């Protein structure tokens, strides 16, 4: 039997989806391969990234944070300054433009924190596409403001009540909807997860983060960074930052997962740190599961990291040791959330706060001339209400 190894990163990746979707994945792959190098497509995407999203985003030297930690210099890649407040728009816009060229009239998407949902609803509004967003009922509760945003943008938000009522189940429901509507709809997956070609395509749309950071740091510091740090749920902002540095072995990479209440409590979302290999949402990767292969619920204070799987290329990076992965707890992330707000006047998303928490641990151990780039993947406005609940009674 001939094995089709397209879309694999080492042993990870693949296309584990119902037959109904296979022709659509092939169509998508062909369209993506055709348009990604096409001048008209690239120019249109670049136009919107510059004039609509506001790229390039700054690479900001966080001097006060650096001084406070007393070690390596910390630069923040300010994806939080993108239109819609996170890196998600880089991918949503790219895929929406592609969907339009494929003649699709309708787009669907899953969302956890709501950032990908908002970005996709935004791209849909801009490009006149019908849009439906699937969101877990628990996340609808945690992120009600983003629900309202999506509705304002003209999207229909479907509250998903099945399973753990979070991102995993929103993704299941989006896949089911796609199985039913595949002939006229394109599914904009929001991370470097899912069946081939999604992990590659989403990574490439997000690679603008790393490409810009590489140019910016070389210009400011005259050298490459020593370490890149980014949070990893599905892992799109991390892969977007990491990938352009992939072949530069002197640049180390650290992906930061959500340890939730602590790895040993079992209430976490650290698929790479504490998971095992399996198939979820169309790809083979590390995930949280029991010995029968039933997917276990993830837990994180951050809705965007609250996912029991991870992109297959991260699994490959882990096994080949191209990147290191660690996990930080809800508590550590909240401390970093407060610290950056107070020191730099930047309220980070809870997702990005995980990357910052790891930077706070690593930076003091490095010499002062070392350079760290942290991906500040999103802004924290969406989290302020949730954090105020969590910190109730605590001194800020």
């Amino acid at each position: 039997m001939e094995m089709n190894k397209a879309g694999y990163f080492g042993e990870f990746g693949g296309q584990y989806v119902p037959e109904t979707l296979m022709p659509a994945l092939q169509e998508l792959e062909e369209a993506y391969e055709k348009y990604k190098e096409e001048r008209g497509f690239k120019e249109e995407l670049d136009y919107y990234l510059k004039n609509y999203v506001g790229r390039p985003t700054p690479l900001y030297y966080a001097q006060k944070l650096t001084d406070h930690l007393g070690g390596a210099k910390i630069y923040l890649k300010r994806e939080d300054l993108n239109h819609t407040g996170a890196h998600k728009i880089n991918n949503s816009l790219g895929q929406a433009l592609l969907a339009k060229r494929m003649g699709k009239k309708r787009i669907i998407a899953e969302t956890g924190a709501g950032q990908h949902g908002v970005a996709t609803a935004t791209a849909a509004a801009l490009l006149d596409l019908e849009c439906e967003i699937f969101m877990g009922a628990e996340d609808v509760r945690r992120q009600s403001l983003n629900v309202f945003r999506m509705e304002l943008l003209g999207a229909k938000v479907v509250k998903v009540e099945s399973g753990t009522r979070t991102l995993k189940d929103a993704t299941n429901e989006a896949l089911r909807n796609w199985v039913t509507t595949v002939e006229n709809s394109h599914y904009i997956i929001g991370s470097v997860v899912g069946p081939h070609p999604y992990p590659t395509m989403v990574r490439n749309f997000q690679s603008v983060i790393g490409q810009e950071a590489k140019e910016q740091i070389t210009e400011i510091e005259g050298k490459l960074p020593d370490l890149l740090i980014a949070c990893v749920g599905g892992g799109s902002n991390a892969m977007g930052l990491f990938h352009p540095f992939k072949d530069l072995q002197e640049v180390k990479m650290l992906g930061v997962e959500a340890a939730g209440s602590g790895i040993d409590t079992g209430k976490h979302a650290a698929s790479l740190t504490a998971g095992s290999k399996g198939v979820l949402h169309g790809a083979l990767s590390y995930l949280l599961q029991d010995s029968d292969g039933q997917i276990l619920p993830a837990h994180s204070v951050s809705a965007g990291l609250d996912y029991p799987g991870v992109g297959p290329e991260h699994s490959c990076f882990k096994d080949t040791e191209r990147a290191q992965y660690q996990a930080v707890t809800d508590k550590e992330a909240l401390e970093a959330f407060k610290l950056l707000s107070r020191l730099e006047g930047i309220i980070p998303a809870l997702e990005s706060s995980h990357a910052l928490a790891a930077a706070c641990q690593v930076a003091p151990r490095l010499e002062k001339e070392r350079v760290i780039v942290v991906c500040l993947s999103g802004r924290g406005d969406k989290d302020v209400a949730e954090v105020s609940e969590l910190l109730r009674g605590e001194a800020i």
Partner: protein
Amino acid sequence: MNRIDAVFNDLRKSQGKAVIPYVTCGYPSLDFTKELISVLAEAGADLIEIGVPYSDPVADGPTIQKASARALTAGITLDKIFRLVEEIRGKCQVPLIMMTYYNPIYVTGVENFIKKAAAAGVDGLIIPDLPVEEAGHLSEVAERSGLRTIFLVAPTSTSERIEKIAGISRGFIYCVSVTGVTGARKEVSEGLEDFLKRIRLRTELPLAVGFGISSPETACRAAEYADGVIVGSALIQKIEENVAGEDYSKALQEAAAFIKELKGAVDSKSAPNDL
């Protein structure tokens, strides 16, 4: 001979059509499933699909999702399912096909899973999220163990893909009658005849139609151009109604009556007719 092949051979000779019920294993309990399989076999089920409950059933509609979730909450495991199959085999020779998502197989290990399934008396596997591209190794292992791997064809499948699927599928081909997830529907889709003809042109394998079969009428329509029909959600709905009232013997009776009714309906339509 593999039990699946034997049943379709016999049906071909008698010009009969197969009725294939799907049961969610462990819903509402393991004992109930054991009883259910015997009564369905007695009622005329030609083959039976045993659904392995899964936490993330992306190809299933609400009925099977709910039944799966309930079975998992009640503590169903793969080992319990294999033991159940073994017990059933002690008294009944109806072909049993395990329908499972791929991850439980991957995590158990392909060789190990197939060894356990074959030892328990399973005759075939249906894996809704394993397309032919990813199935090479599993197909080989299954074939060596005498298990049939049944692949699905969808309305969206291209002719090229249908040929590939026909080449690798064993036992029969599962023809997904709608572009969608599992679930009872009032009518069969309009393009069903053309869809089945497209597949028939490319294979000698028996064709069984599933997704959306809900009544003697839809079963007849589907059976007209196929060798069998698969009924899942509609059967579970009938069970669900009685389980809600905790009347388990009525649930069994009605399930059996439903399968008997379907069997009678498709058999009466085996010869060319004016439906």
